[in-house]
């Protein structure tokens, strides 16, 4: 077999790897399309290789030829689709007609490849080559292929030159265009079906395409970011493994030179990327450390004056400095409350910095979840009463098992949610209940009749510095850290907090699930636990 045919296999392996990586690492639709397109190309390349190796066995030749045509039929709509995604043209009127049309025709032609109306009969030519004869279906397919590939290239070209587009999109379009233009040159071989034969040097364009795409992905972040190292290692592996898979390969001085050059380029890029990656990581760690240290220092510094404001206003309120006139008592109360809410913000910031630095440890012990909730209710009872809200604790009928965890942290999370429930409820009240789920989870439910949460905010409210719209309307102050900290504390116990709300003004229910695995034990078992573990 001629040397360029051998290049198809390692290139196919490389493109499969690149396709998989882009799919696994990137979340966008274009990554998925690129993945399918890569699989199609790999199938085409392997089909072509097997077709060459099957020369002499007509049935096998026809079979592999049909396979490679099938792959080509699928590649056409995918490439067109990819161009629309990259150029952000999917919403255009004509795209809405042309894209489904491209797929429908692609599927029709793909079906047709299995019939003798596409290709049939085998002929042999120089260089040890063989091919099938094009039939009617093939002629129409050629028109379809040229049309849609031209559309795709036109879209990519226009976008790469469009001054209004962002640099990122322009580069993406440019490299995709270059890559697939080169790949289409490998498709010149299609002329063989019409009896136009020549040395299969055109296959060299496939590895060239793989290199361009790999370069674009590693250097220009095409489709995915920061996957350079993985791809480059893959590329080196593929190149080196070529010698193992094809020991009989005679590639001559030029072939060896090409492989050596490719190895050299891949290795130097790999080294460069490794250094860059290390530098980037160090810089990110430095910035993150600086940020958390800054917040930590500032917060500690803030606590002293805040403690003074809180303390003195509390003493003034209590009449320690003499009877307080009615007029003054209102602003003094405001100052005291404001200082308390600021202290809470500072505490929230400190908790976040500690979470980010991994500085929070769990003090694990067995404790009664029932007593803990009773404690929470007692702590906030007055607050609910002052607002004219009910606060109920619906005790379960069955006794609750002991829980092993950090009582303080779990209580912090529960208190945070009960406090929020009271804060964001105007009429009605809050009901707390506990149940055991599947004998391995404790579920604490906190149901309120408050302002509710918009559906799209169900996840967002748990992010740091994030608050629900209705919450902000009712209570403009707040850092948006409380739920983040609560969620993190519960997550440290391998648990989770979820929320359910039917929407605006329909109340919310928060569920705190703490999976206890072997940590939930019966009373008898609890008595057998060594005392030091119970502390």
């Amino acid at each position, binding site marked *: 077999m001629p040397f360029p045919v051998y290049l198809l296999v390692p290139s196919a392996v490389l493109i499969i790897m690149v396709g998989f990586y882009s799919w696994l690492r990137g979340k966008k639709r274009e990554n998925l399309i690129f993945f399918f397109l890569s699989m199609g190309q790999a199938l085409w390349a392997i089909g072509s290789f097997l077709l060459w190796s099957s020369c002499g066995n007509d049935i096998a030749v026809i079979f592999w030829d049909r396979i490679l045509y099938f792959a080509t039929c699928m590649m056409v709509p995918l490439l067109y689709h990819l161009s629309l995604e990259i150029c952000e043209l999917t919403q255009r009127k004509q795209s809405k007609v042309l894209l489904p049309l491209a797929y429908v025709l692609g599927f029709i032609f793909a079906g047709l490849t299995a019939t003798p109306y596409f290709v049939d009969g085998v002929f042999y030519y120089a260089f040890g080559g063989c091919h099938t004869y094009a039939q009617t279906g093939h002629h129409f397919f050629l028109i379809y292929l040229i049309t849609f590939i031209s559309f795709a290239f036109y879209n990519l070209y226009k976008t790469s030159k469009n001054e209004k587009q962002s640099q990122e999109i322009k580069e993406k379009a440019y490299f995709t265009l270059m890559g697939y233009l080169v790949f289409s040159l490998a498709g010149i071989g299609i002329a063989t079906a019409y009896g136009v034969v020549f040395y299969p040097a055109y296959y060299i364009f496939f590895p060239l395409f793989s290199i361009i795409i790999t370069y674009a992905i590693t250097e220009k972040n095409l489709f995915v970011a920061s996957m350079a190292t993985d791809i480059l290692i893959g590329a080196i592996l593929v190149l080196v493994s070529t010698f193992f898979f094809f020991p009989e390969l005679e590639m001559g001085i030029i072939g060896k030179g090409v492989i050596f050059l490719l190895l050299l380029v891949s290795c130097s890029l790999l080294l460069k990327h490794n250094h860059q990656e290390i530098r980037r990581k160090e810089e990110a760690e430095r910035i993150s450390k600086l940020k958390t240290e800054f917040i930590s220092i500032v917060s*500690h510094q803030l*606590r*002293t*004056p*805040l*403690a*003074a404001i*809180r*303390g*003195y206003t*509390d*003493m003034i309120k*209590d009449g*320690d400095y003499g009877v307080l006139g009615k007029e003054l008592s209102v602003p003094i109360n405001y100052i005291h409350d404001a200082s308390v809410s600021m*202290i809470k913000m*500072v*505490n929230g910031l*400190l908790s976040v910095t500690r979470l980010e630095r991994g*500085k*929070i*440890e769990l003090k694990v012990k067995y404790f009664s979840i029932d007593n803990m909730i009773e404690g929470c209710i007692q702590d906030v009872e007055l607050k609910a009463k002052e607002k004219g809200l009910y606060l109920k604790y619906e005790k379960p009928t069955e006794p609750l098992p002991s829980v092993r965890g950090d009582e303080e942290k779990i209580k912090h999370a529960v208190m945070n949610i009960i406090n929020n429930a009271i804060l964001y409820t105007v009429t009605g009240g809050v009901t707390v209940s506990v149940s055991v789920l599947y004998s391995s989870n404790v579920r604490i439910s906190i149901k309120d009749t408050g302002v509710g949460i918009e559906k799209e905010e169900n996840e967002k409210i748990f992010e740091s510095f994030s608050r629900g719209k209705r919450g902000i309307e009712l209570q403009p102050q707040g850092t948006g850290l409380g739920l983040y900290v609560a969620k993190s504390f519960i997550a440290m116990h391998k648990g989770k907090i979820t929320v359910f709300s039917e929407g605006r003004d329909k109340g919310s229910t928060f569920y705190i699930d703490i999976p206890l695995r072997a940590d939930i034990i019966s009373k008898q078992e609890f008595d057998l636990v060594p005392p030091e573990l119970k502390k």
Partner: protein
Amino acid sequence: MKKILIIEDEKILSEMYKFKLEKEGFEVLNAMEVDEAIEIGKANKPDLVVLDILLPKESGINYLIKMKNIEELKDVPVLVLSNFDDNETKNKSFELGAKDYLIKSNHDPKEIVEKIKELIK
């Protein structure tokens, strides 16, 4: 009259706690740093020590270490009252015999007084 020794370098806060405690009927002594506190403590034998952690010359932790060798102070209960709430420091304080560890900004003076009364009992 029960004696409380407050080791606190922030005058604005030590004055505040002193005022509140005196109002509640305690005798209050003030020290700004560890060695000064030990001198005052030896001379006056307080019933309880309120200890800050971040002090000018040496950390409040050093007071907890040093007091163990001082006859007049080794049995005097210590309430750590600091804005520094690092876990390691907290654990260390408890290991060295502190009775409790409160964050200044999280409590009104009356709550601190309540805690002191509870510890003196």
